[in-house]
């Protein structure tokens, strides 16, 4: 049975827009690729967003932040040598639409699902402050979930996730969809 969290229909993969495949092959997926890909999408869509009435600089930064946060997670929790991470984005009306497909192990997906249930259950701004306070009590805590909470609270992003069925090799496909309003 597939599982959904938040707003799984926040965006849909369009045939137009920009599609990128990050493959964990000869060129290993590494941390800086999240930022580089995020910067590229930010620059690519800034003028397109401006033509649609948004502020180019705000759009570049907001798209860059969104893509970097989601790709950092996808790269951190990827199955080594597994399926590519697919990202797609486009500007439509006053929003940026983003979709990401990645794969994770069953354990990672179960942990992430529990986290998403909590993150989508209440006001993200209040939850963020509470989690930061709780994190501060634990000096080694990296603030897991803070990226998603800042996107929902500070950027008013509408976000949703669909977890597919467990496939061969015990991995799951995770689809993330986001609609990011542009200022």
């Amino acid at each position, binding site marked *: 049975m597939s599982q959904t969290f938040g707003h799984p229909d926040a965006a849909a993969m369009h045939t137009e827009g920009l599609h990128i495949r990050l493959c964990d092959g000869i060129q290993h997926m590494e941390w800086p690729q999240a*930022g580089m890909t995020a910067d590229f999408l930010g620059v690519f869509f800034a003028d397109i967003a401006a033509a649609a009435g948004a502020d180019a*600089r705000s759009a570049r930064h907001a798209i860059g932040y969104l893509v970097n*946060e989601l790709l950092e997670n996808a790269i951190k929790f990827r199955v080594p040598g597994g399926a590519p991470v697919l990202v797609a984005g486009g500007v439509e009306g006053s929003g940026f639409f983003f979709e990401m497909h990645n794969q994770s192990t069953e354990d990672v997906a179960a942990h992430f699902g529990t986290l998403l249930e909590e993150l989508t259950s209440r006001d993200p701004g209040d939850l*963020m*402050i509470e989690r*930061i306070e709780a994190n*501060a009590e634990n000096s*080694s*805590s990296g*603030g897991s979930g803070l990226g998603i909470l800042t996107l929902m609270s500070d950027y008013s992003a509408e976000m949703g996730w669909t977890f597919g069925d467990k496939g061969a090799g015990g991995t799951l496909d995770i689809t993330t969809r986001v609609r990011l309003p542009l200022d």
Partner: protein
Amino acid sequence: MQEIKTAEYRVWAEGATIHYEGTMRLSGTEAYAPVQDMMGAILAQAPAQIVLDLTNLEFLNSSGINLLAKFTIEVRKAAGTGMAVRGSTLIPWQSKSLPNLKRLFPDLELTIA
């Protein structure tokens, strides 16, 4: 002067003012530890006020926001040290996310100009 410098970012302290510049997208708490240590060492000297100058910090990921948030709570808990955070209206993430620090520590002076 204490300084941490890479191709992407630079963090340095002048007295109780800490300056941040560039793009900080480090991979988590451990990667941010040297920066956290520098900030903690300044707080340990118990200055009247610590200033975080972020006016040239173009990008910061959520692990970095977590670092700033945890430090804000540490300063709040350390009686006798105040805190000021300076941001720029030219850097969009700052107007969006820095007000969260004020929620954590209402006495903090936040200036985004």
